[in-house]
């Protein structure tokens, strides 16, 4: 892979089979806002098409995936339909899906719920106060939900936040942990090991299997983190939504 192909260009979008029963459309081989926008828009367009035999349509950061009934449909014809749809327009110029919301999520920065704030700030070349100011000033988009149920990939932070993952894994990030790497943040929905650095903790549980709406966030939503103190955080833990408030975006 040469440097020339690091961004979406002549090689993209690309369509490939993924397994016997899947098709994958990739809009680039690195994260970018246009490629993410294209992946979101194509996903919604395929859902609207409602092709028979398509069992699932989803997306990742810069790709859209559809799964079909391999024994029930003519896969070649389905691929041709997909190729036609993909070629029909410039997906990176499409508007974001409707019904998006902006979430204001209380978060504790500093102290033991924020164990790597200073280290992350140092890697980004700012002091911890400046780091918190920058993170909380950024409207982050839910670029995709993935890895674990309901878990959002949020981006992007300013360029100097292109900090690498850790070489060693943190053995356990708790539910609600806000972690950072490569200009992105994610909010843990299940307790898991991580190579990203934890800069804050929220009382929001992005996956609530017992609830009517188990998956709190949706791709395309925006998230802003609002600093709160530890005492307020402890009270918010009793709120099923951890104090997070959503408003539909115009």
């Amino acid at each position, binding site marked *: *892979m040469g440097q020339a192909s690091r961004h979406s260009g002549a090689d993209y979008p*690309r369509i*490939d*089979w*993924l*397994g*016997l*029963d*899947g098709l*994958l459309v*990739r809009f*680039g*081989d*690195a*994260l970018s806002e246009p490629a993410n926008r294209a992946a979101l828009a194509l*996903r919604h367009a395929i859902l609207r098409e409602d092709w028979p035999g398509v*069992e*699932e*349509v*989803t*997306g*990742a*950061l*810069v*790709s859209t*995936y559809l*799964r079909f009934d*391999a*024994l029930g449909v003519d*896969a070649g014809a389905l691929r041709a339909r997909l190729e036609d749809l993909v070629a029909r327009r410039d997906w990176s110029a499409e508007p974001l899906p409707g019904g998006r919301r902006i979430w204001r999520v209380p978060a504790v920065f500093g102290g033991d719920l924020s164990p790597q704030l200073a280290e992350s700030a140092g890697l980004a070349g700012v002091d911890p106060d400046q780091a918190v100011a920058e993170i909380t000033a950024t409207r982050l988009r839910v670029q*995709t*939900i*993935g*890895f*674990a*149920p*309901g*878990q959002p*990939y949020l981006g992007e932070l300013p360029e100097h936040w292109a900090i690498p993952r850790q070489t060693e894994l943190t053995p356990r990030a708790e539910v609600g942990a806000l972690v950072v790497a490569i200009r992105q943040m994610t909010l843990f*929905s*299940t307790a898991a090991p991580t190579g990203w650095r934890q800069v804050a903790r929220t009382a929001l549980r992005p*996956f609530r*299997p*017992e609830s009517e709406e*188990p*998956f709190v966030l949706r*791709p395309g939503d925006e998230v802003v983190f609002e600093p709160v103190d530890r005492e307020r955080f402890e009270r918010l833990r009793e709120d099923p939504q951890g104090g997070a408030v959503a408003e539909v975006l115009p």
Partner: protein
Amino acid sequence: MSRALIVQRAGPAMSLQDGGRPGFLGQGLSRGGAADPRALAEGAVLLGQGGDLAAVEMAGMGGAFEATGDLRIALTGAPMRASVEGAPLAWGASHLMRAGQVLEIGPVLAGVYGYLHVGGGFDAPEVLGARGAHLSAGIGRVLRVGDRLAAGDDPGGEVGLCLSAEDRFAGGELRAVMGPQTAMFSPEDVARFEGTRFARDARGNRMGLRLIPDGAGFQSRAGLSIVSEIVVPGDIQITGDGVPMVLLVECQTTGGYPRIGTILPCDMPRAAQAPAGAEMRIRFVDRDAALAAERAAADTLRALPGRITRLVRDPWDMRDLLSYQLISGVTAGE
């Protein structure tokens, strides 16, 4: 009080499993469900009921289960040592348990995942459309001593039936199709991959299993800088140490490790059931051959009811005593 099995002893990795929850990839939830879906189908056929009912999946080691009422049961998947009140039970067969009897299921004899089915299926609350546990997502949990596993309504039916399982419990060849990232590996490495004998690593769970190559590992030309995208069960991802990992039903939904190909769905039971140390090979097939294999597997599943036979009591062998009583005219569930 409804009929149930009470867990008196529990192996370390027993959970309720069914067909899983397809359709939630976009929400970050892999489909989960039984690691060996064929075993679920076999249990359903043995008990003459739907294939979407929940069964107890037992990885490596079973448990002890006391019946609170008369129950039809079936045992499928990886064969395990099983007995009721000291009388050995045939695996791959249906049996009757009487109220108060204790079913003992010991260690696996081949393969990894054994299944205990009950007439009417196990009744547990549905979460996101299924009853099974998704352990890595935190839905449900492993079974523990004292758990009461309620049985759903059982219209009853014959027991003492058996079904010889396709041998998928000792590793062997897995067929795969190439994918979007196969070309990130050199043609020489892809050829070497196909020629490699792998041993199933002892480490592994419902998320995935590692295949240790008998030679050097594999490295993609793209290195480890791939943007995360959708991953699916069956994907063979090559982790940083060059060792392939086959993703199973509870895998994460996105990943950034390069994937050399994807195992065919019909070969996934063989992959999941390969015991530690089993020798495995991977062979790439084209899409036409893959589709033909998948159709043949679906035909085999549909033909399962025709392959049912009766357990015959051999007077020199008391193994099937419980089932024999049933053939004599006792019908379960009545």
